[in-house]
Every structure is written in structure tokens, then in C-alpha cells.
């Protein structure tokens, strides 16, 4: 799998389900943090790295993406199989 190489740190995206709530907290390997109540929106926000939208409720648009996503890369709107995209499975 192609990795997003970030010098000096691992490229780990993390989502914590906050105990006692329905909220999710996403933490990008770049240090950006956001909260949401929908895992689809949370993944979209995380995978938009480095152009994280202000809020997971406002998914990234192509114009907001700092560098063009590669085919098959996360963060590309409409990518087949992107988290949250409905499909047969």
C-alpha cells in the first residue's frame, strides 16, 4: 500500500469514540483534531489531509484540496469505496 510519508512521524489516522457520548474525535497524524457524530464525515475530514475542512460537517471540496489526490487516494471526492460511500458491501 502506498503510504503518505511524513518525515519523523507515522501516518496514522485515529478516531476515538468518546466514552459516555455519541461523539467521535478524529486525530490526524499532522496534529489536526476535530469531532463529529458520523463516522463517514469523520473519515472524510481526516482523509482530506492536509486540507482538513473547518468542520467534519463540511466535507472537503476539490477546490479546498491543497494537492490533487491521486487516483485511489483518500480524500478524493467520489472515490469508489471511500468510507461512507454506500455500496453493496
Amino acid at each position, binding site marked *: *500500500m*502506498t*503510504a*503518505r*510519508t511524513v518525515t519523523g512521524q*507515522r*501516518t*496514522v*489516522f*485515529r*478516531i*476515538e*469514540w*468518546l*466514552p459516555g457520548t*455519541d461523539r*467521535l474525535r478524529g486525530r490526524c497524524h499532522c496534529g489536526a483534531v476535530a469531532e463529529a457524530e*458520523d*463516522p*463517514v464525515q*469523520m*473519515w472524510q475530514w481526516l*482523509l482530506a489531509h492536509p486540507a482538513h475542512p473547518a468542520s467534519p460537517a463540511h466535507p472537503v471540496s476539490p477546490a479546498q484540496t491543497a494537492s490533487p489526490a491521486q*487516483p*485511489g*487516494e*483518500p480524500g478524493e471526492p467520489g*472515490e*469508489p*469505496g*471511500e*468510507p*461512507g460511500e*454506500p*455500496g*453493496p*458491501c
Partner: protein
Amino acid sequence: MPFVRNQWYVAAYSAEVGRSLLARTILGEPLVLYRTTAGQPAALADRCVHRHFPLSESQLQGDTIVCGYHGFTYGADGRCVAVPGQRRIPRTARVGAYPVAEQDSLVWVWIGDAGRADPGLIPRAPWLADDRYATVRGMEPLAARYELLVDNLLDLSHETYLHGGYIGTPEVADTPITTEVDEEAGVVRVSRRMDDAACPPFYAQSTGITGRIVRWQDIEYHPPCLYLLHSRVAPAGVLPRPDGTDPGGFHVEVVYAITPSTATASYDFWAVARDFALGDEEVSAFLHDSNRTVVLQDVTALNTLERVVAANPPGVQELSINIDTGGLAARRMLARMAAQADAAQAGTAEAQAGTAGAGAGLPGAPASLAPAAR
């Protein structure tokens, strides 16, 4: 979702591959597996080049397979070494030979471009071949696409509802999870830590714990094939020591190999390795039977779901909630791996077409007329 080619897949347990012929279909490709007289596993395309009779229904003689229909004979490298009634063996008389590797009591085959096969890429499940663990295992065929099993295993909240009385308790579905995607390692991790949970029969009867427990479920999914569940149970309040040792904990390594067979069928390899009651055959029998029952509950549910999904109209929507965070990550990773493999294959095909066209001087010639196919 398409198959993910250019990957290693578990084709069998080591103990299944011996001096008889074993048929398995992986990613739609029929294979025959056997072990040579030197003890090496071999995997060939399970179709005689002559009239496509299954080699798995033929005879193993030494290191060769003799086709049960007309006697075409193939070595472990797939090359035909004998044909009936004539001395000339057609140059194209060979069947595909698949890269094979044996590790951790599993036989892995590489499906895709053989030139890319690197055994160093195979993820490990070392407990399965470690004397410090006692392991029970099995394999259940699944009449469902492999993605349904990935979904199932990445979200263990279903244990509460589908596996109550075996491994499910209310705390599993009620406990929040933490999910990580490690892009460099190519791993999805899902962790669920229950501090004070009921002990399900699976663990109560195997460990002897009678009260409530600490129960940790730490998943590592190495897509596409290998799924590891690091399970720790201990009496409530008993945690690992600060130095990392854990004499008060019971550790179970649950291993699944998720191998796609066809677009709507899969192999569900399962194994349960424990670090306690090592010589206790009664515990082994109990864990084997219990886990097999659990797997068969999944098989029944997923076979039903496959029929439903297959009949869904195009564009039908799903609904995902917090429990699906890990499954969504796995889907994305699989989709990306499939796209990368397809792109690589397209590039290879394009390069080969260019080379063949220049070399043969027959651009556009039907394949049946190309020199290599005669």
C-alpha cells in the same frame, strides 16, 4: 468491490497440503495444491491444458500430476513433461504455477503477477506455530462475498446479538471503540477495552473465571487476508504490570484468514490460540466446538445477507454509525489496494502489448495466431 490481486492469500493450513491433491478456488482461479516428495508445497492451475480436466481429480505420481483424462503430466513448476502417444511435447503445454510460501502453519499463494511476489510481505500469525500456545482451528466455506466477512469481523458489536451465550455479552456492544488506520503498515486497528464485563461461557469455561472480567479486544486487520484479534481476559481489576508482564491475564489470539473464492463465495479460516491450559484436551475441545459454533452462526447470517445484497437494486443506501468506524476504514483500504493492483496490471499489459507488437510484427493479430500460442 473487485478482487485485490497482487496479494498473498491463505490457500490452506499446512496440515491440509500433503501427498494428495487439494482443490481450492481463489479469486476465481482454480488451484490444485500438493506437497512434493521434498516436502515443499506446490500450487498449480487446476486445469489440464489439453481439455481442461481438473488436475485435482487426477493422480499424483512422485512430484508430478498425471491428468486423469488423457495422461498429460505436469511437474511442480507447471511444465508438461509427458503427453500420451507421442514424444514431442508442445511448447505451450504447461499450466500456471503459483508462488507459494509456508509460514505460521499456513500455506499462502500469490494471486497476480508472479514477478511481484515477495514472501516478506506476508503478515505474521506466529502463535499458530508456537509451542507456548495451544491452538484449535478450522475452515468453513462461506456462500458470501469476502467483504461481508470483513465487515463482520471489524465490528465485534455483533457478538452481543448474534453470539449471545457463546462470546457475546451486553458490554461488547455498549463499549466505545478506538480505530486507527496505519497507512505505512497497511493495517486497520480497532480496540475495545471493557473494564467490568460479564464473562461469556467461551471464556468462563476455558479459564475458570467465575466473576466479572476485564476484557480487551484489540483487532489488527492486515488487508486483504489476515485478521488478528488479540483478546485478553482477567478477573475484574487485574491489569498487566507496569513492566508489561501479565501473569494475571489469559491471552487468546484469534486468527482469521479471509480468502475470496469467487465473487460470492469465500473461505473462512479460523484459529484460536491460547496461552493457558496448554495440555488440557478438554479445554481444546470446548474452544474448538464453541468457536466453530460461533463461526457457523456468522456463516448462516452472512449467507443470508449475501442473498439480500445480491438482490438489492443498484444504488441502494446503507446506514453507518459509530460501530462501523473500523469497517469503513477497511473498505477504503481494500478499494485502494484493488485500484492499485488493477493499475499495475493495466500497465504491465500495456507494456507487454507494446513489446509483443514490436517483437512479433503482428500487431492486432488474434491471440490464437500469435507465435506464442501455437
